[in-house]
């Protein structure tokens, strides 16, 4: 069904954890490195000139409005896929088009076209213009390139990597998975790469171009033992250069996928009811994404439909809790040099030592709150309009050791990997699905558990974070996407091991 208004984290492939201890930062001077190409792609390839853009923006503002923008996109996506031992399938997709938006207050008119011809673009602009009904407004006379940093410089464009180089990579994942355990009966593997080029031109005279790579290598395995089957998967990726995919990466993916499937044969039935929950480091940051991230996107707050709508400046967590949304971490899935309405990529502190310090703003919400956009204006493609969206959302480390955190839970569950999540913004109630975890009994990790949903409430959960460990990790997968209002965008997350005093675990075994 179309247009279902739910916000959910949709994983297309299993996410992965990393080994870094701190959020990596770019060394000084690194930004000066050349990009994989220079600005001007859309002019060179499709004849999109400043004069042309000005005419279209004039049409978009022909009935008034506060501002208008054009979002050009040319995206090339490739998948090479292995099944039953052979790389025998490939998919490719090319997306080309422009989205045209007119904004009046908090109202949006939007049209798009796949034809970059003057006639088609003027038609789309005239659709966007219908949101306003006043005197025509003039766009800026000249457009100036926005200066941005590059958080994902590439040595080689992914489109320049021949398929012959990708095939052995995928084959190698398959061979390593089978070599690791005789219990493996099926392997699916794939390499995905995407090269998204965008050009944003705004009526206030900004133009910004970006080349956003995205890629991952993924393995999913089925293991069989005594007639029982279990499945697990693993991927590594992000906005990487192709040189990232070394033998060591292939080895890690195969090992994680196989280990994670094989251990499930020892799993026990998960318990049900309220109990302490310890979240392992890295990918479990999906908890932040669902529990508070979405609720702190500014559109939900300006409409007063988020449970966090009245909490700005108030204490929402213990003083040792700091949560950040960051588009500037090198090569991570949620990083962006520029957002999709021409604001540079940046880092935003959402919860500062327990105090709710900022929402995530796009331009419309920023105008509502009379603040600057935080660069969170994102969209799935030229066919969609901008919404405030997360980038890489994470919680900083604390002083405890992971063992201390587990010990302090005493009895409960430990979450190691998750595969789905969703939140109800107004209530703050959220859920995430644990694909892999362990029981905590008497302060120690014991039997594996799997396939259970955990329910909680965002504001309550924040206050219930009682211990943070010193083992911060970011997720390092490249296969996930966050869904909101029918749009999917890539984002990342991370956190240290942490204890949440109490959440509802949706198991099948009632506790005695």
């Amino acid at each position: 069904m179309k247009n279902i208004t739910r916000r959910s984290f949709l994983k297309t492939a299993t996410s992965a954890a990393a080994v870094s201890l701190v959020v990596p930062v770019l060394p000084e001077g690194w930004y000066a490195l050349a990009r994989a190409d220079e600005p001007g792609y859309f002019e060179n390839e499709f004849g999109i000139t400043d004069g042309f853009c000005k005419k279209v923006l004039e049409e978009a503002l022909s009935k008034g409005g506060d501002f208008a923008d054009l979002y050009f996109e040319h995206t090339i996506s490739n998948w090479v896929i292995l099944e039953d031992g052979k790389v025998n399938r490939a998919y490719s997709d090319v997306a080309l088009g422009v989205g045209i938006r007119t904004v009046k207050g908090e109202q949006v008119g939007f049209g798009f076209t796949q034809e970059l011809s003057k006639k088609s673009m003027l038609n789309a602009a005239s659709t966007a213009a219908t949101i306003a009904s006043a005197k025509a407004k003039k766009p800026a006379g000249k457009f100036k390139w926005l200066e941005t940093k590059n958080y994902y410089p590439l040595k080689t464009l992914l489109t320049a990597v021949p398929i012959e180089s990708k095939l052995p990579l995928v084959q190698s994942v398959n061979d390593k998975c089978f070599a690791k355990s005789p219990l493996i009966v099926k392997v699916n593997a794939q390499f995905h790469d995407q090269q998204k080029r965008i050009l944003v031109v705004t009526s206030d005279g900004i133009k910004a171009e970006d080349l956003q790579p995205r890629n991952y290598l993924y393995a999913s395995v089925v293991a069989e033992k005594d007639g029982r089957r279990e499945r697990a998967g693993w991927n590594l990726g992000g906005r990487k250069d192709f040189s990232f995919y070394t033998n060591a990466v292939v080895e890690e993916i195969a090992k994680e996928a196989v280990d994670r499937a094989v251990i499930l044969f020892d799993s026990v039935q998960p318990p049900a009811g309220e109990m302490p929950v310890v979240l392992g480091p890295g990918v479990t940051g999906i908890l932040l994404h669902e529990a508070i991230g979405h609720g702190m996107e500014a559109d939900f707050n300006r409409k007063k439909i988020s449970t966090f709508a009245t909490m700005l400046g108030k204490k929402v967590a213990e003083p040792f809790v700091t949560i950040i949304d960051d588009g500037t971490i090198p090569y991570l899935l949620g990083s962006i040099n520029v957002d999709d309405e021409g604001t540079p990529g940046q880092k935003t502190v959402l919860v500062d030592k327990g105090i709710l310090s900022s929402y995530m703003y796009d331009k419309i919400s920023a105008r509502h709150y009379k603040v600057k956009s935080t660069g969170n204006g994102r969209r799935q493609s030229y066919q969609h309009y901008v919404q405030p969206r997360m980038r890489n959302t994470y919680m900083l480390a604390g002083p405890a050791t992971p063992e201390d955190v587990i010990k302090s839970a005493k009895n409960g569950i430990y979450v190691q990997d998750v595969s789905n999540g969703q939140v109800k913004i107004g209530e703050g109630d959220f859920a995430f699905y644990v694909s892999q975890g362990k029981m905590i009994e008497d302060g120690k990790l014991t039997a594996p558990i799997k396939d259970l949903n955990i329910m909680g409430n965002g504001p309550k959960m924040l206050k219930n974070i009682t211990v943070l460990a010193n083992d911060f990790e970011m997720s390092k997968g490249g296969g996930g996407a966050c869904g909101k209002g029918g749009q999917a965008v890539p984002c990342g997350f991370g956190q240290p091991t942490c204890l949440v005093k109490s959440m509802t675990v949706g198991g099948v075994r009632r506790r005695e």
Partner: protein
Amino acid sequence: MNKEMQDLVVWAVKTAKSAGADECRVRMSSERFVNISYRERKPETIKEASSRGFGIEIFVNGRYSVQSTSDLRKDALKDFISNAITTTKLLAEDPFRTLPDPKYYKGRAKRDLGVLDPEYKKLTPEDRHKLVKAVEESCLAKGGKKVISVTASEYDSHDELLLMTSNGFEGHMESTFYQAGASMTVQDEGDRRPTGYNYIACTKKKDMPTPEEIGAEAAKRTLALLGGKKIKTEALPIIIENRNVPRLLGGFMSAMYGSNIQQKRSFLADKKGKKIASKHFTIIDNPFVKGSFGSRLFDNDGFATKKRTMIDAGVLKEFFVDWYYSRKLGWEPTTGRPSNLIIPPGKRSVKEIMKDLGRGILITGFIGGNSNSTTGDTSIGITGQLFDKGKPVHAVAEMNIADNHLKFWHKLVEVANDPWIYSSWRTPSLVFTDVVVSGL
């Protein structure tokens, strides 16, 4: 039929063959849509556009790839097809990958599926705005003083699909789509702001409820969430409301697909002919339901569609097996994906059933959750109403149900008489007993 689209599809098949493809299948779709939403009695968004999609499956030297593009400039498309063939030749051979035997194309039903609204072109911008305003007004009126925000919207589209293969298949389908609804947020105790919604979709405008009914229902559903809280963990009877059944049923259905069976990811793989659910569980795949979204005369392979009983009184009868996986499995193909899934309705209403159930939960929404097609394990968050002898007690939130599909569907004790007709999965409300509901 759109002549320009048809010409492009014919050209693409010829171009692919002359560029070296042994066989190909070309798919082209187009959509013209309008989407309007209102908030605070003025338009919040107005969106309108046309889009086209072109996809080609290439079979060359026993190798296979799928390519799609929105860049339909003929020169660009010609290079695109030629490059695709070159790339395909570099892949490993797959002896199972061929176009279907044309015998499966034959026998296509000649009937009007009723999915194209002849009135669609008469719809004006004024009609659309009037509809959304009426939805918003009725939602606001029913919501009363508790309302924080209402967003009402409509979406309508005209869609066309063309499918052609180099071994003689040609198919065309044209349909319309209407959706209207509202999402409402209300103030509850403390910081809780429950949000509920009601979205209704049809292929024909005349089948839609009135905008007043749609808006009022959105408000009613939202107000029912007020005071939501969790109860202790216990085993209870549950009723899953008709419109929410597909969310849980989807996890079960994923094990019925040929791809998952062949890849050893199906908990149903060895269950054909066996009893896998209670006698109340029957599922029919019916591609000929008049006016339903899933109706079709041919499937993605080009097979002529047929009505099939998939599960009969708890016994698994058929799987969804497309051409490719039928060859890998060595089975006769059926069809790759469901069309309209029908669970035949029972005799009693949900209200009547609730009276006899004692204490239980009526589930009116799911949150999060997932289902493991390999093992059948499933766990999912719920919202709804705790009831006792037919009377509502209070709303429930932050709760969860979990089970294994191979056990869960044996707990189905009754099917209500209320199939949800605004979806291709036409499911009535379902009643289960002894389900562990997690809360406190």
